[in-house]
């Protein structure tokens, strides 16, 4: 694949001190970066004019569910990867909640092997506990050696403090990171949406924010004790942001991520019982949303985790109480983030969607050196984009964004000698 990308803006943290220029890719590799590149008259390499667009190393999604193997009716590695690539992502971490569960070497290998020809690099997250049952540690050492990027019990976070303590100690041998989507199951067990004014007015059982905050507090103490590394994903309340900011200031190795939809919606948007907005963690109040936005801007929140959770239509087009949690979002992640925080700098976008995740999970930093394979995303904060069913690459349709214009567009993604444009 050969292409010349013209008129790119370079965020300051991307390539030396170049702020604007052209990028030539030949055969999937970076051939030249310069303030201006001209081709010979007989050279008919494709040209992409990226005027107004910004260059970023390829984006990293750290907590998505491609449901393969076992739940291919929701998503497959190929369809999920297609959505990721279209949305600007070249690296995706996958939840272990497949069937069978990714709790041993062979399941890790299955995903690595099956994804080898995809444009997107897929990284299995290994289960912390065998079968995600929260009882016994899985073979994390073996999985790490086979390519598991991190460990998590996914949508069913470890409830047992004792087991999490052991797991945090155990992964120190390999330098691994654990991921918790924090909530204490014993608080608000039957809750459906954020406990608050809206849940009371709608007659829906509430999921109090304290369920999340309690687990964050507990886990922070476990990290202090074990001196290990823990990442909280999908934090949703103002108090969670405060707790994590304090732990970070104390030097604990704690990081966190938020979903784009928690930056855009609040529980007020559930007044129509829209099952696409039924999420766990739930959408919370406008005060919480403001705190999350502030946390993204001031760096307390390290990454955006899209949490692309596909669900079959039959599990969404039904009574709110019985509908399953989650929404897809890889193709709308950037525009949602940009819509929610319109004054986000290009440098922050690079950090939130690529650089920080690479640092936290030990992926090699992207490099735009000549001769390196091109792995990049070009985003345009001023152009708008509309997600529609024909452009949806995912197998699932549980998205609230269909046919709604959002500000911000991914112009192109390049990886593994392949390119996609929007």
């Amino acid at each position: 694949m050969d292409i010349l990308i013209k008129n790119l803006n370079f965020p300051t943290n991307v390539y030396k001190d170049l702020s604007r220029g052209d990028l030539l890719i030949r055969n999937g590799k970076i051939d030249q970066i310069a303030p201006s590149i001209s081709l010979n008259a007989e050279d008919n390499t494709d040209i992409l004019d990226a005027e107004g667009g910004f260059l970023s190393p390829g984006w990293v999604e750290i907590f998505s569910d491609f449901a393969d193997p076992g739940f291919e009716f929701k998503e497959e590695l190929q369809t999920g990867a297609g959505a990721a690539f279209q949305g600007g992502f070249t690296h995706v971490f996958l939840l272990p909640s497949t069937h069978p569960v990714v709790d041993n070497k062979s399941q890790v290998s299955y995903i690595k092997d099956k994804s080898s020809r995809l444009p997107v690099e897929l990284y299995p997250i290994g289960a912390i506990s065998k079968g995600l049952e929260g009882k016994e540690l899985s073979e994390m050492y073996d999985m790490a050696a086979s390519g598991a990027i991190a460990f998590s019990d996914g949508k069913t976070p470890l409830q047992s403090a004792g087991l999490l303590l052991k797991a945090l100690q155990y992964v120190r041998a390999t330098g691994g990171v654990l991921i918790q989507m924090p909530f204490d199951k014993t608080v608000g067990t039957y809750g459906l949406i954020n406990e608050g004014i809206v849940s009371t007015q709608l007659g829906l059982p509430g999921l109090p924010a304290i369920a999340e905050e309690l687990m964050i507090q507990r886990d922070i103490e476990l990290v202090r004790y074990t001196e290990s590394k823990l990442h909280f994903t999908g934090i949703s309340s103002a108090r969670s942001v405060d707790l994590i900011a304090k732990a970070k200031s104390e030097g604990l190795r704690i990081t966190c991520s938020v979903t784009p939809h928690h930056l855009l919606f609040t529980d007020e948007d559930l007044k129509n019982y829209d099952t696409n907005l039924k999420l766990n963690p739930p959408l919370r109040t406008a005060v919480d949303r403001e705190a999350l936005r502030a946390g993204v801007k001031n760096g307390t929140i390290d990454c955006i985790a899209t949490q692309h959770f596909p669900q079959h239509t039959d599990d969404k087009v039904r009574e709110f109480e019985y509908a399953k949690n989650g929404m897809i979002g890889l193709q709308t992640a950037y525009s949602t983030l940009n819509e929610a925080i319109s004054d986000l700098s290009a440098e922050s976008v690079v950090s939130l969607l690529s650089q920080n995740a690479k640092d936290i999970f030990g992926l090699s930093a992207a490099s735009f050196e000549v001769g390196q394979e091109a792995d990049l995303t070009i985003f345009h904060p001023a152009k708008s984009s509309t997600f529609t069913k024909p452009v949806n690459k995912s197998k699932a349709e549980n998205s609230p964004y269909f046919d709604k214009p959002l500000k911000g567009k991914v112009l192109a993604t390049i990886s593994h000698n392949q390119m996609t444009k929007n």
Partner: protein
Amino acid sequence: MALSTQHLLGIKDITKKDIEIILSTAHQFKEVLQRPVKKVPSLRDVTIVNLFFENSTRTRMSFELAEKRLSADTLNFSAAASSVKKGETLLDTVNNILSMKVDMVVMRHSASGAPHFLAKHINAAIVNAGDGINEHPTQALLDALSMKEKFGKLEGLKVAIIGDVMHSRVALSNIYLLKKMGAEVMVAGPPTLIPKYMAQALDVRVEYSVKKALAWCDVANVLRIQLERQNQPLFSSLREYNLAYGVNRKLLESLDKEIVIMHPGPINRGVELDSDVADGPFSIILNQVENGVAVRMAALYLYSGKDISES
């Protein structure tokens, strides 16, 4: 006489004027029910299905009787929520029934928001007969009619709703209705059975002492303890509940005034309400049941979409 919505999904969604129209129509139908021939042809060519995905005795009988008094054709469907979860979806069930040319749906469902979901997908008019812990609009309307008959008006009336507020759709519908009509509302009961954000969300007073609530109010609407809807224990025992929150004759006699006692039924005698109160002179519980038929006739008639001038 136009109503503001196509469906009667909840009191939250309708206006004060809607409520007034329904109550005055109910008042007219109540007069019909006193006649030797208690039947009118108002819904003669209308077919109504009663979909009960959750058990019900009195509400279902009340709706069915209301439909028969209006000369509607009726169809009954009942299913436990569990069989719906396992088998046919709600939408399939309803679409199958509507294919048989049914005009209106009366539905009770254990999931909050189920009728709102249905309203997004079907054209037939829906009357909510209770959804989860959300709303039970016709119950609030019949309670309102009963209070109006007793006191002449709702505005300024002090109403205490006592007991399992958290699991009660009767409470939520009553609160919405009473607030819209200018009454004052207090909820009272054990703190574990009152949602944390009650006061802020609904602009009501919250009291944890039943005695204080009774001393404050003109009417006490005592709720049924919804044991079937509690997934986890929220109070230690029925005995202790009765000791701390039960309404009994002695308590009422200790007040320096007379208050009216209501209950949406079925009563757990000796738990939230003692028999000497339920059957006593202050109770209007059986008036509520009587008014239920008239109110449901009014709701069915008005939401059927038939022009009122036709009959």
